[in-house]
């Protein structure tokens, strides 16, 4: 098993309330993504400012940032955070399908949660003229964890069905016969659930990957592990040592099996910081796992994890992203290659292919055509 490397671009620093201006410019994301691509990394994960505060911008919307990179970096996976609690499934399915299609199948969806400070719109409910036109604002914070989980599961189920509302092979483009798509391959979904009602079909054709990759950064609680193991294709976990990581990976795989999933269709990486020898000391000491020293030493340490089947990859959080990513590309990756744990991924593959995940076929509803 070859190691996968990915990089996390997040809300910079919990302490800072404001993003630095550079983070509002495409040049920042371009530089980061191109360096990550040069390092043959699997994906860049983009996370906006978490939560919502109507007096603060939400940073750069991760979907917009990921899409702007689609034309700039042409090989790397683009994983964008979208909250499970904040949008209608039709919106999420469209955005991710579109990102997947324009990027040639490189889209991932980082399953984020929360809609903090939903105040503004909730307040407006009172003077909304017709109640049934209010936005679908369940008060997430007031919900019991079980209801919250149900709502997220429903959103994911509906989103998958919307991706599947265009079956593979629907598009014919037969100019002679005047058939653009075979209408039998385009099905409404008629979903009527507790939280969402969606007729479909989607107005964007099926994603290149069938389903974009669902990614989740695991929190340290049992309920989240069960949720992630049941839903995500790619999980980033946290551990301090290979032994702990191996135990945790086993627990995740066990929960996935209990949810009826095929273990081969689940990738697990671990979050890690890098402190390069000779780099400027950062104000914030990294929390959790950190690899330190020379690139050679980091590579040796990393291979110890992979050899012990503790993890399948490292998801990097960099204190000085633009400076550190260059050292990853120029020093760490060559060192990993020398150790034999890092291949050169073939050009132009989908994110699923990079991760060794298969492409889901669309589920037919009722009797299909086949």
């Amino acid at each position: 098993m070859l190691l996968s490397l990915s990089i996390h671009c997040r809300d910079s620093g919990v302490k800072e309330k404001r993003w630095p201006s550079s983070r509002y410019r495409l040049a920042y994301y371009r530089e980061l993504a191109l360096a990550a691509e040069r390092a043959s990394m699997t994906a860049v994960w983009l996370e906006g400012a978490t939560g919502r505060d109507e007096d603060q911008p939400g940073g750069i919307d991760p979907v917009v940032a990921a899409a702007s990179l689609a034309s700039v970096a042409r090989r790397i996976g683009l994983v964008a955070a979208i909250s499970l609690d904040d949008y209608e499934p039709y919106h999420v399915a469209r955005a991710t399908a579109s990102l997947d299609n324009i990027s040639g199948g490189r889209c991932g969806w980082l399953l984020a949660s929360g809609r903090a400070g939903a105040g503004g719109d909730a307040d407006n409910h009172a003077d909304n003229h017709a109640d049934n036109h209010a936005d679908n604002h369940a008060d997430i914070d007031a919900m019991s964890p079980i209801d919250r989980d149900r709502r997220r599961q429903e959103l994911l189920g509906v989103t998958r069905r919307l991706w599947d509302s265009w079956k593979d092979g629907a598009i014919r483009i037969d100019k002679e016969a005047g058939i653009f798509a075979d209408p039998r391959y385009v099905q409404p979904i008629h979903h009527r659930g507790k939280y969402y009602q969606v007729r479909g079909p989607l107005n964007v054709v099926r994603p290149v990957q069938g389903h974009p990759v669902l990614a989740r950064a695991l929190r340290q609680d049992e309920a989240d592990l069960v949720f992630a193991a049941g839903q995500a294709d790619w999980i980033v976990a946290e551990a301090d040592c290979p032994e702990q990581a191996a135990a945790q990976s086993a627990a995740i795989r066990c929960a996935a099996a209990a949810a009826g999933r095929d273990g081969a269709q689940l990738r697990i990486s671990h979050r890690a910081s890098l402190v390069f020898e000779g780099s400027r000391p950062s104000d914030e000491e990294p929390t959790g796992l950190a690899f330190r020293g020379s690139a050679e030493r980091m590579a040796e340490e990393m291979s110890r994890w992979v050899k012990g089947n503790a993890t399948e990859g490292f998801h990097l959080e960099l204190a000085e992203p633009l400076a550190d990513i260059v050292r990853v590309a120029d020093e760490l990756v060559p060192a990993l290659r020398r150790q034999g744990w890092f291949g050169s991924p073939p050009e132009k593959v989908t994110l699923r292919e990079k991760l060794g995940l298969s492409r889901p076929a669309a589920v037919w509803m009722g009797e299909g055509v086949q």
Partner: protein
Amino acid sequence: MTVHERRMHLNACALGLGFGPVWRLPLTQPERNGDLDYLIELARTAERGKMDALFAADFYAASDRVESSPSPHTEPLTLFAALAGATERIGLVISASTTYNESFHLANAFASLDHLSGGRAGWNMVTTAVESVHANYSRESHLEHDLRYERAERVVLEAVGMWKRWAQPLPQGRPVLVQAGSSEVGKQFASRHAEVVFTAQPVLDAAKEFYRDVKSRASALGRQPEHVLILPGLVPIVAATEAETKELERELNTFVSVESGAKRLSQMLETDLTSLHPDEPIPLEALPAVSTSDGMRSRVQLVLDLIRDQRLSVRQLVAQGTHLKMSGSTVQVADRMERWFKERAADGFNVLFPYLPGGMDSFVDRLIPELQNRGLFRTEYDGCTLRSHYGLPPVGTGSPEVTR
């Protein structure tokens, strides 16, 4: 501002999608609709022509004619964000519904596009006329026409408020606000908020009246009339000579079916046109006098007026479509565009290419140089933001903010 300084504004519409059955012709490439390189080529062609902006519409529901018309591979926000990374100057205008989005999401999405594109974002604040959309967005029914505009008012004021409060200044102060509904409430909304108005106006006199109407409403609210641009949709059909244009027009109509066109228009007008003789003028008694349609009210009214005004037959109506069409040699089309512009029926056009990519190539390679030679269109971009292309003032100066 003197007359010769006034320049036309031109948007390039309908990226990746053509009209009705036109995709069946050999001169189109529908198989490339999802190909980013193709979409980038189109965007760069428009940018080479120094056009003001690219525009993408958005309707939030699958077409009910997926068999016979191309469906999108993309939605506009992600597509235009990708194009922002592949272009330098051209504006990026996207429709986003005030009925089916929340103000925070809209404010954040357009702010993000404005930041990453360096000040090129524009928001076409549509209210979504298509009734079936409610069923995709967990709503029990579609919001009624005038209530949609009431909601739009709230959503837009909230979004504008957020852009003003947020600490990180936007490259344009705020994205350019565009509006595209021409009903009475639509025009009221436009006169308060819109800096650019899209409209379907196939008849010169009616277009002049619309132009005068919207500008004077804006003036009455204390806004500068030149800070509200009126851009009717324009379908240009141009080839090297008049004869070649005729040939092209004939080709574009190859697969246009009067029957299915009549069916579609019957639904739109809520009046049966399918049993009428296709080549005789539509009898006026068959039509309602005014539109009370809940959908695209102004569009229905426009078709009714068009039939009355020009005594159209069903076949002529189907071929005309609802947007202004100009066909002829380069000089002939440029003459007509100039006339609409100089007689103040338009400040420019929202150009809907009858087929892609060739329709855009011929517009950029033939018409734009002709308009440039006449001093009617820029030969270089003056600034870097969409606001600057449109000649709109920086936010916070010039036009007083309209508040209620």
